[in-house]
């Protein structure tokens, strides 16, 4: 998975560093040559350019990256323009840092795939969440143990936890099951809500499309992902 981080302020540079540490290919972009030069050794590309210039982005091949994170501080107009360019260039996932709720709303309308409000997420946590495509969210408990959120492997569907013997076979514990449940609202329209089963018991069944939150050692979790 390749990333592009546009804007190397505090959030952008922290995120770029964390992504590089996680072993991803990262291209960094900023208008300021000093900020860019900090990354010239570690990043797969460190470019000094104005990201509001669509042609410059195109020539730099930014349309090819899997995920682009835009963090240009208070420059609301710039962030809007950049998101539009990135979507035109065909970037699969565009993540933008918003200044406030209104900014977030605008970014969402023009097609941003994820909008981050700074108080809600830290750069490091975001980087870890990308560590594995199938882990939606990662939380390090201590250096050894991690809590991850993942889609239930297909082979788990319609089996109880007891039958799966996850603790015995993998040394992992399912601490929560999240399940989407569609229902009809008072207007007769389908809606969907999330049910959660906290600390599920042996007889609890795992269904297709369930999301599991699991505690375990990283190597055991990786092994589970190969299922």
């Amino acid at each position: 998975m390749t990333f592009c981080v546009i804007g190397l302020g505090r959030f952008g540079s922290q995120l770029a560093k964390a992504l590089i540490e996680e072993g991803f290919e990262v291209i960094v972009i900023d208008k300021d040559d000093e900020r860019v030069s900090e990354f010239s050794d570690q990043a797969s590309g460190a470019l000094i350019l104005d990201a509001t210039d669509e042609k410059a982005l195109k020539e730099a091949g930014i349309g090819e990256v899997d995920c682009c994170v835009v963090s240009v501080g208070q420059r609301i107009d710039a962030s809007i323009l950049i998101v539009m360019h990135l979507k035109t260039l065909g970037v699969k996932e565009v993540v933008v840092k918003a200044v406030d709720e209104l900014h977030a709303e605008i970014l969402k309308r023009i097609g941003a795939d994820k909008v981050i409000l700074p108080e809600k997420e830290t750069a490091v946590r975001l980087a870890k969440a990308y560590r594995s495509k199938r882990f939606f969210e990662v939380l390090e408990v201590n250096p050894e143990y991690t809590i991850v959120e993942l889609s239930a492997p297909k082979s788990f569907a319609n089996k109880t936890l007891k039958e799966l013997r996850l603790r015995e076979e993998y040394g992992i514990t399912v601490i929560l099951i999240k399940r989407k449940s569609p229902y009809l609202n008072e207007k007769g329209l389908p809606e969907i809500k999330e049910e959660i089963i906290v600390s599920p018991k042996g007889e609890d069944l795992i269904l297709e499309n369930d999301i599991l939150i699991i505690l375990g050692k990283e190597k055991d979790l990786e092994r589970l992902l190969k299922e």
Partner: protein
Amino acid sequence: MRKTKKATYEEILETAQFYLLNKNYKKAIELFEEALKEKPDYLIYYQLGIAYEGLNERDKAKEMYRECLKLNPNFEEANKRLDELVKE
């Protein structure tokens, strides 16, 4: 002739909704897409969004809600779902 066709369209939608509510999302998507070909409608896009959410395919779900809102920008339910997905 026209009458029969309309019934078929509604029948497809009804069956698709049945599958959706029974968490058979793939089958629901298949039928909703069939109905879309006949006549695009914001409610079909909306329900496709719900089905993709059921499959945890959030990007596809967002795409469907956005299509829905293009046809009916004030549709409260789709705005609500899209809001939640983008913030998540």
